[in-house]
């Protein structure tokens, strides 16, 4: 029991002795694991609200639609094609066929295309939309799908027009038979005369069957929809495949009605969540890359700081293996706590990004964390930490006891060209460049960290730019905010905060590690006449200079990341003014964040540092 107890005591004492570094490392790993947890926890979170809505509305397992056909759409829909489906094998109940008209709804200054379903005033056996506010359809009145009504800004009691005819809004309702706004035509089941562009922002309205028929014109005849309940809902896909083209193959197919299964509707309702996942997936790996950089620099810096402690441990009889175990245990303990915190944070934040909109009943609530998710997050946290700390720990353990006791730094690298060039630079640059030359790997890590952060931010910028361009060109949502992009923006904001926070932690850690490593050279520079300001500026320069190529490299990488992540391969470069602002902002942020550790190092008393014994 002696050895584990001793290790535990030494680990805990050291963590208590240097809480600041432990907290920084904790923050870095927590942020990365929280992002990863968030991405993993969103799997299937909308399942329960959809099923709840389906149960409350006697939702259809399959809906079948027929549309007008012909080049101008003037040939009436083949209503007879729906009749055999109502009595097909496996069907236990049906409602409809209901007439469907495509009209333009005007309200609150907006003109939005809608699919207007004509319904009976009595409840339907299958897919009776659940009125959540107000009442069900009556003559001269309309019920709007809840998400759509909120997007347009219409409330119960208000008035809208459909193709110029006024209707009073009787109520708001939800359904599981049609995807919620803006996914009503997600599978192109609308076949509206206006074409696909307008279908992207189409809303859903219910009115009386007579009201729907009155909206039809010779140029835009009615479509029809039949709702079916199956004995085996799980067989919906097979049923649809057997009885007609699945809706995604295109509407109005001459080969028969377009069929839409409940699973497809559920997927469409999950669009907001899945788009969040698509953004979070690369985002969480970027966050992990940044966390690796944080932990690597932090571990290296901690080892530098602990040289003398290692020497004392070895002088007291501790072997290299004990030193490795203690140093690793310390970091792995932090990683374990951070992974737990990250799991908790990701799990708690998930509901904010998992609501599928208001078209379903109830919130998804806190997602269940599967053992797989917990295991993966823990493995990533521990793996990242082990990868970043093993080499410095082994190196520290193999340092000679005498060197370690003398606190002798690892001999710095000599880069003759950099040293020669630096002689011609102003003093802060001279000091900064020489610090970079001493520890080039740290500078490379700093540049990589900046590149990864800028890459993430540029990808976010490209996504915003993409949305601006699309909005300006297509006006898919009739001037209304794009809910999908709204969710993407929300996720990207969270991701940007995580990336920037991680990058900030990285800069602080790298600044601190450089300051620790540069204590003696800095003290010497001051003893030889360098001022505090020059030394402090030199330390900042050592961080800012590597950030320049990092930021510049991160920009094309960000453009490529967006092209890879958006699924179309589209290359979109954000405006030059945005990129310039990002470059200047990044360098300013690095300078500001490194200023404090630099200043602290420059303020340290010179004399005690120069009294240290030399070695060799």
């Amino acid at each position, binding site marked *: 029991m002696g050895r584990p107890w001793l290790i535990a005591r030494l680990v805990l004492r050291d963590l208590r002795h240097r809480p600041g570094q432990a907290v920084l490392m904790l923050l870095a790993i927590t942020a990365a694991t929280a992002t990863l947890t968030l991405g993993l926890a969103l799997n299937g979170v909308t399942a329960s609200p959809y099923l709840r809505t389906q149960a409350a509305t006697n939702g259809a397992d399959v809906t079948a639609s027929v549309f007008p056909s012909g080049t101008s759409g003037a040939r009436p829909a083949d209503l007879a094609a729906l009749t055999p489906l109502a009595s097909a094998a496996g069907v236990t109940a049906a409602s409809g066929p209901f007439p469907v008209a495509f009209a333009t709804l005007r309200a609150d200054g907006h003109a939005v295309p809608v699919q207007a379903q004509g319904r009976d005033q009595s409840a339907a056996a299958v897919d009776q939309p659940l009125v959540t506010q107000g009442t069900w359809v009556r003559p001269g009145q309309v019920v709007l799908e809840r998400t759509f009504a909120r997007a347009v800004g219409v409330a119960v009691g208000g008035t809208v027009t459909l193709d110029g005819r006024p209707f009073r809004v009787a109520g708001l309702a939800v359904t599981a038979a049609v995807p919620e706004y803006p996914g009503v035509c997600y599978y192109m089941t609308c076949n509206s005369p206006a074409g696909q562009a307008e279908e992207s922002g189409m809303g859903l309205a219910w009115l009386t069957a007579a009201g729907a028929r009155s909206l039809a014109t010779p140029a835009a005849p009615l479509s029809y929809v039949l709702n079916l309940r199956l004995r085996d809902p799980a067989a919906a896909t097979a049923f649809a495949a057997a009885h007609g083209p699945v809706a995604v193959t295109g509407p109005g197919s001459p080969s028969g009605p377009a069929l839409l299964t409940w699973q497809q509707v559920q997927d469409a309702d999950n669009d907001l969540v899945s788009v969040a996942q698509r953004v979070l997936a690369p985002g969480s790996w970027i966050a992990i890359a940044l966390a690796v950089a944080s932990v690597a620099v932090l571990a290296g810096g901690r080892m530098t700081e602990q040289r003398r402690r290692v020497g004392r441990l070895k002088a007291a009889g501790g072997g290299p293996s004990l030193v490795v175990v203690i140093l690793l245990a310390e970091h792995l303990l932090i990683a374990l706590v951070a992974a737990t915190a990250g799991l908790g944070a990701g799990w708690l934040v998930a509901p904010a990004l998992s609501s599928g909109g208001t078209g379903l009943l109830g919130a998804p609530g806190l997602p269940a964390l599967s053992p797989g998710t917990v295991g993966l997050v823990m493995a990533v946290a521990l793996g990242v930490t082990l990868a970043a700390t093993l080499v410095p720990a082994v190196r520290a353990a193999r340092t000679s006891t005498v060197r370690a006791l003398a606190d002798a730094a690892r001999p710095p690298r000599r880069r003759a060209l950099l*040293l020669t060039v630096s002689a011609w630079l102003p003093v802060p640059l001279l000091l900064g460049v020489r610090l970079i030359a*001493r520890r080039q790997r740290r500078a490379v890590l700093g540049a990589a960290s900046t590149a990864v952060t800028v890459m993430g931010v540029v990808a976010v910028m490209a996504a915003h730019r993409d949305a601006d361009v699309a909005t300006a060109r297509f006006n898919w949502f009739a001037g209304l905010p794009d809910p999908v992009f709204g969710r993407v923006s929300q996720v990207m904001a969270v991701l940007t905060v995580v990336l920037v926070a991680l990058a900030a932690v990285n800069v602080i850690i790298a600044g601190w590690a450089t300051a620790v490593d540069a204590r003696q*050279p800095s003290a010497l520079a001051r003893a*030889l006449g360098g001022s505090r300001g020059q030394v402090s500026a030199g330390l900042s320069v050592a961080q800012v200079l590597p950030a320049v190529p990092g930021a510049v490299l991160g920009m094309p990488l960000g453009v490529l990341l967006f092209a890879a992540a958006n699924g179309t391969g589209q290359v979109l470069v954000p405006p030059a003014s945005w990129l310039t602002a990002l470059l200047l902002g990044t360098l300013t942020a690095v300078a500001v964040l490194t200023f404090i550790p630099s200043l602290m190092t420059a303020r340290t008393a010179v004399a005690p540092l120069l009294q*240290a014994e*030399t070695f060799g």
Partner: protein
Amino acid sequence: MTLLSARGLRKAYGRGDALVRAVDDVSLDVEPGETVAIMGPSGCGKSTLLHLLGGLDRPDAGTITLDGRQVDQLGERGLARMRRDAVGFVFQAFHLMDELTAVENVELPALLAGRSPRAARRHALELLARTGLADRARFLPSALSGGQRQRVAVARALVSDPVIVLADEPTGNLDSAATLEVLRLFDDLHAAGQTLVIVTHDSRIAATADRLITMRDGAFIDETRLTGGTSGSLARLAGLDG
């Protein structure tokens, strides 16, 4: 005219029962061209005194005048300028930058002072030649002996043409042969009129000075003017000639 004058210098560390008076009411005058040795046991405050005189640390009380200018009230920038232009330091631990060659180490203070790299390099090479290390100018410290390293450090202390060189146990890390090398160098500096204050606990080095001050518990307890100074046989005086 006195080059360096200190009056009533005090410096204490800690508080209460742990209070240590490292320098306790010390006064000192150093004339131009004089070599002053300060001796005493470890922890008597001699290094602290040297740091106060060179502006590496600030006194709690007392005044310091260097080359006619009161320096104890200087701000951080003023002290940096003083260290850059007027003071040269030689440390026991050499404090050479491991990644810089001998000549690059020597020219560093001149670069920090804003001199042109060419002028700094020329002067650094001259000083290395003067310290007998012309053929070692491109060597890294790790390739030099202890004595050679300390001679590089002395050359570095001289590169800004300081009015005074402060040496803190300059032979403390050296063997006898290396000690002799360094002593010879100081002897040359003394002969050239360089003002030196050397802190040491080695009586052989003290014997080469014009004046020997003994410290104990932060205060001067004895002061002796040495007539032999460095004019005699250095090796004999230092007891290094066997």
